[in-house]
């Protein structure tokens, strides 16, 4: 994240605001995407206008599993980044 680290001080605050806004937008987009993905995976028939029991449980599990996947991927991603930064540091 060198572009962030190299930011002049007077722009750091502006950046923090952008970051906060991006996190808000991102978490809402993730919500919409999660619904789309799990609805796609778990809805089968449209004979009724309410979710069948097994559809509901499929969707809740799908969402829960996706969130856990995101957490695990996030950890591995951070480890990878940290390792890369170490390698790039001048000795």
């Amino acid at each position, binding site marked *: 994240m060198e572009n962030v680290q190299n930011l002049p001080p007077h722009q750091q605050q502006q950046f923090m605001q952008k970051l*906060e*806004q991006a996190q*808000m*937008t991102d978490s*809402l*987009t993730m*919500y*919409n995407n*999660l*619904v*789309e993905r*799990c*609805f*796609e995976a*778990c*809805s089968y028939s*449209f*004979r*009724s*206008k*309410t*979710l069948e029991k097994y*559809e*509901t449980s499929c*969707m*809740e599990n799908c*969402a*829960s599993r996706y*969130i856990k996947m995101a*957490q695990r991927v996030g950890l591995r991603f951070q480890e990878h980044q940290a390792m890369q930064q170490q390698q790039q540091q001048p000795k």
Partner: protein
Amino acid sequence: MNFFGGGEPQKPAGPDPLFAATTEMEMYTDLFNKLTASCFSKCASKKHKEPDLSLGEMSCADRCVSKYLEAQQKIGIVLQQANESQAQQQQQMMSMQQTMAGRK
């Protein structure tokens, strides 16, 4: 269905209200677009032989919207619980670190 957890007591100032309103609008648009795409792909025959939707396709669409919005609400709860349990874990981690730091 509530973006920004409306309904709960909101923070006094919070972020820029123009940003919040604009984002809310964008999220409803995004939701509507995904809803349309999902129900089109679930309910409309892929052959496209007619310029109109059949009665069967239309009532499938009605049920699809209803089920989609129910799913949205159910998944919202799962997401909220995950956020809460993560916040709790972080707090436990922090208080543990403070305890450890206090020992030194």
